[in-house]
């Protein structure tokens, strides 16, 4: 009983804050969740998995990372904390509310974790418990080292010497990690540096681009939105005059590039990102096909972003993926050979055979 009485002041502040923010966040949550599926489908990356109800140990683990981070900063906007830690504001409030009543007997205010919410700000000013961060796990240490090593290879990377001194400090903790024989091989791209400088100067580019959906090279004028690597290839996401949409171009398929001399407005292009980029990784008319792959064609399941995958008893894998064109699918089927077959749609079931016959004709 004593416990509850002393808890009250701390709790009240939080309760009040909860009420205030609850309405707002509820509305927000609805809005963002409605948008989510489209975004996930458009990205080739595995989407962050949606958490179910979190276990007690997950909540504790989260708090032991969150609390020292907050104490280092003293006051942070609630919405920023939620965003930073990829939590909903409701989850965050619930966790902070719980933390604020934890501590040691007799659970008087000075014996509790000092954290509260004040008008939309999270405040953690007095280090009582859990004010120092947890040690890094070995996997986390290696992750940092991998991250730094990859970053040091990127054009326009943060100052290498500063990263080096940071790593030297980590080495005091875990020399085996910072010296690890762990190599990062990023694809070497001669055009990357030019693209980067065009992006930073908002310079429009004219490129000659090989389009595998048609097996032809065409000229396009692009305005760079973002440069990134995925599945071992560099891509440039750009506003493309030809399709009038934001599209991803594989950098190694750019045969040449020159500046047109025009400067564009980054903000304008970026603002179209949300609408356009979500429409598709490759463009607009994306048709869904189901394939069965096995043996030496199993790479198909790994090489492309798939909508779904399931393994069969005989070792084959059924994948469904979005295709950019019939030509692109024909090419994929030809490369997969006898170990890939189309399950649906029906019109593509004989596509591989038709393609093979057409190419076979050249050999007569």
């Amino acid at each position, binding site marked *: 009983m004593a416990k509850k009485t002393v808890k009250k002041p701390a709790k009240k502040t939080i309760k009040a804050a909860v009420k205030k923010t609850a309405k707002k966040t509820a509305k927000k949550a609805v809005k963002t969740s409605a948008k989510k599926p489209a975004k996930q489908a458009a990205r080739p990356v595995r989407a962050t998995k949606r958490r179910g109800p979190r276990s007690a140990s997950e909540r504790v683990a989260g*708090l032991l990372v969150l609390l020292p*981070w907050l104490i280092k900063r003293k006051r942070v906007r609630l919405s920023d904390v939620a965003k930073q830690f990829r939590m909903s504001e409701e989850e965050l409030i619930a966790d902070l509310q719980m933390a604020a009543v934890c501590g*040691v007997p007799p659970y008087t205010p000075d014996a509790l974790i000092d954290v509260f919410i004040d008008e939309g700000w999270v405040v953690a000013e007095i280090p009582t418990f859990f004010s120092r*961060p947890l040690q890094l796990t070995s996997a986390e240490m290696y*992750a940092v080292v991998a991250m730094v090593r990859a970053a040091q290879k990127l054009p*326009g990377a943060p100052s290498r010497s500063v990263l080096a001194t*940071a790593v030297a400090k980590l080495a005091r903790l875990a020399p085996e990690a910072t010296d690890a024989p762990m190599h990062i091989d990023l694809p070497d791209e001669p055009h990357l540096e030019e693209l980067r400088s065009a*992006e930073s100067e908002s310079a429009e580019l004219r490129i000659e681009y090989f389009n595998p959906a048609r097996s032809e090279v065409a000229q396009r004028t692009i305005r760079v939105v973002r440069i990134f690597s995925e599945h071992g290839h*560099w891509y440039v996401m750009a506003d493309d005059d030809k399709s009038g949409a934001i599209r991803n171009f594989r950098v190694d398929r750019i045969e040449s590039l020159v500046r047109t001399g025009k400067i564009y407005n980054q903000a304008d292009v970026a603002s179209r990102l949300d609408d356009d980029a979500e429409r598709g990784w490759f463009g607009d008319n994306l048709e869904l096909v189901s394939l069965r792959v096995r043996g030496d064609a199993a790479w198909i399941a790994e090489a492309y972003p798939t909508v779904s995958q399931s393994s069969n008893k005989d070792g084959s894998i059924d994948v469904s993926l979005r295709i950019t064109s019939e030509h692109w699918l024909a090419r994929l089927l030809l490369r997969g050979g006898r170990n890939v077959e189309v399950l649906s749609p029906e019109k593509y079931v004989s596509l591989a055979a038709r393609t093979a*016959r057409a190419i076979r004709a050249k050999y007569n």
Partner: protein
Amino acid sequence: MTKKPKAASVKSKSKINAAERMLNLLALLSVRSQPLTLKQIRAELLNQYSEDGDAARAQFERDKSDLRNLGIPIDMITLGGAQAGETAYRVNRNNYELTDMGFTDDELQALQIAAATVRLGAQEGEQALWKLGAERVNPKLGPRASIGFADPHLGTILHAIGKRAPLTFLYKGETRSVDTYGMLARKGFWYLVGFDHLRKAQRVFRVDRIESSVSVGKAKSYDMPKNVDIVKSVPTERQMMAAGDYEHSTAQVRVHASLARIGARDFGAAAAVREEADGAVVFEIPCSNGYAFRLWLFAMMDKAEVVGPPDVRELVVRWLDEIAERA
């Protein structure tokens, strides 16, 4: 005690939230200089553990193991004297708290940018960043690389390399025991290079193809060879096409003018044998590995044609017939 705020606190009185109890346990064990027995812990954390002795013991064991899994070791001490034989528990904060890294603001910022430009696709990167006091940022410009770090074996393997502990795992249906020399991330995959005791030779394994859990042997079981080049040990696609046992090592491939630059890009200008009147270029392409050669050739569809030697041309025809006849 007039108006009770409903929900949480009332409920917690009878059935306290497990997360709350775990935090209270950790706080208690961290601040007490003396180790505490479960009996003492239950007395301190009044009503937080079950009143039933066995149930309380089970709850405590679960909390203890959850905390251990979070990297917080709980020391067990067997008491003497009046409490002889009883077990007491203690947490040493130095065993789980990070010592001050002394990062400068510039260093933290550089780490943040590194993290923002290199996506790991795994929790570990962010977790580490937060623990180091940094935060996720989202730079507007600049290239961003993605190197997958999500494979659950990675942490185990890297840790074992640091200790020079051999690894044992199932790979292509066989149990392999490997003294691991190093790792390479390339094209979205992680490769492990090491001495394979089954084959008695150096081998390369793709980490995502490991078919079992990875068990780690005794530390310092082998020496790191000085002269192994990890990056070169993992064959590139181009080397794979040349590494095989097909009777012909190269084929002449005519590539349509529009794609001729792709041939030059993949195999170098020196691979071009001649240019034809219509702009098509004939390349000399390695084909020892028939499978890799087929992938490369068919990527160009009808814009690439094998012109010789006749055996390779016939092989391609057989491949095409095989697919053509399936319908």
